[in-house]
């Protein structure tokens, strides 16, 4: 599978490496060439310097033949715009977009993007740990009292 990933931060680099090791053809875009230091020396994919909201940069990253596009920069709006370019201009079959703002995530999911919202996911996970700790705590609390 051919995958274009925008944003080579912690998550972007990790997704790139996992896909690369699984034998997929990966190309990573980042505005900062130093971001590619996060990729290991044995990374076989390609790197492209530039912004993913520019169609020419996306083309250079091979978007025209891509099976999937993933937007993982820190900017919600940049991710949203690049994802819509990938979906509507290049008709990439699978487009995944990270959006931190839950309200925006909801709006663009309704518009047909596959969205991931770390804010709601992490909050839910933290809540689960906290609540399960409370569930298990009564005996300890009772002993203290």
């Amino acid at each position, binding site marked *: 599978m051919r995958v274009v990933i925008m944003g080579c931060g912690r998550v972007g680099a990790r997704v790139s490496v996992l896909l690369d090791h699984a034998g997929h053809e990966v190309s990573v875009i980042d505005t900062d060439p130093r971001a590619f230091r996060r990729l290991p020396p044995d990374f076989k994919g390609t790197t492209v310097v530039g912004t993913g909201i520019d169609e020419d940069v996306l083309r250079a990253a091979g978007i025209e033949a891509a099976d999937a596009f993933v937007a993982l920069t820190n900017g*919600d*709006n940049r991710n949203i715009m690049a994802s819509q370019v990938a979906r*509507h201009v290049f008709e990439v079959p699978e487009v995944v977009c990270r959006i931190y703002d839950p309200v925006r995530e909801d709006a663009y999911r309704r518009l047909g993007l596959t969205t991931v919202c770390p804010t709601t996911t992490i909050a839910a996970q933290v809540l689960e740990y906290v609540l399960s700790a409370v569930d298990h705590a009564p005996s300890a609390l009772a002993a203290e009292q």
Partner: protein
Amino acid sequence: MYIIVVGGGKVGYYLTKTLLAEGYEVLLVERNPDKAELFQEHFGAVVISGDGAEAATLRASGAARADVVIAVTGEDEDNLVICQMAKQKFHVRRTIARVNNPKNEQLFRMLGIDVTVSQTNHILHLIEQSIPGNSFVHLLSLQHPDVTVIDAKIDEASPVAHRTIGEIQLPDDCTIAAVVRGSRIMMPTAATDLLPGDDVIAISHRGKEDELRNLFIH
């Protein structure tokens, strides 16, 4: 009419100032609280500080009753999302986005923005129109992303000079809207002669612009 302007750069500042002077009800949204405070001293209580792409800011600014939202920040991606959120969440009827990269104009319209304004394209068109001897000028783009209006100046060398419109094989999705001869504006018919000096005003599919240029110019 209630207008929300998002982005307090130079464009947003003068736009707000002009719209207020024209008597419109205006609200300026600026992300930087210090700048917003400064604008409040200039304009009074028509400035709020906040991120215009956030639904909470749009709600606080009364987007639900706004007639127009104009996004004029320096970042295209922000202007796009501000307008889309205004439409999607608050059903604002008319959204206008400033476009910094001229290539994004078409994309924004495809993505539902009603009007786009590109300073770069605007200046480019002014230059095109003022170059003497430039005989094929893109006049304007309509709201429909694929439709453009063109002015072709016919000269002696033009392949269509001294021919009637009926004799010309126009590309598909192109139509001649008017022929301008001196101060006369003529409704084109198949019998209309095209003479050197005429301006042919054509409406064309964006993709057929080059074909049309080859037909009229050479």
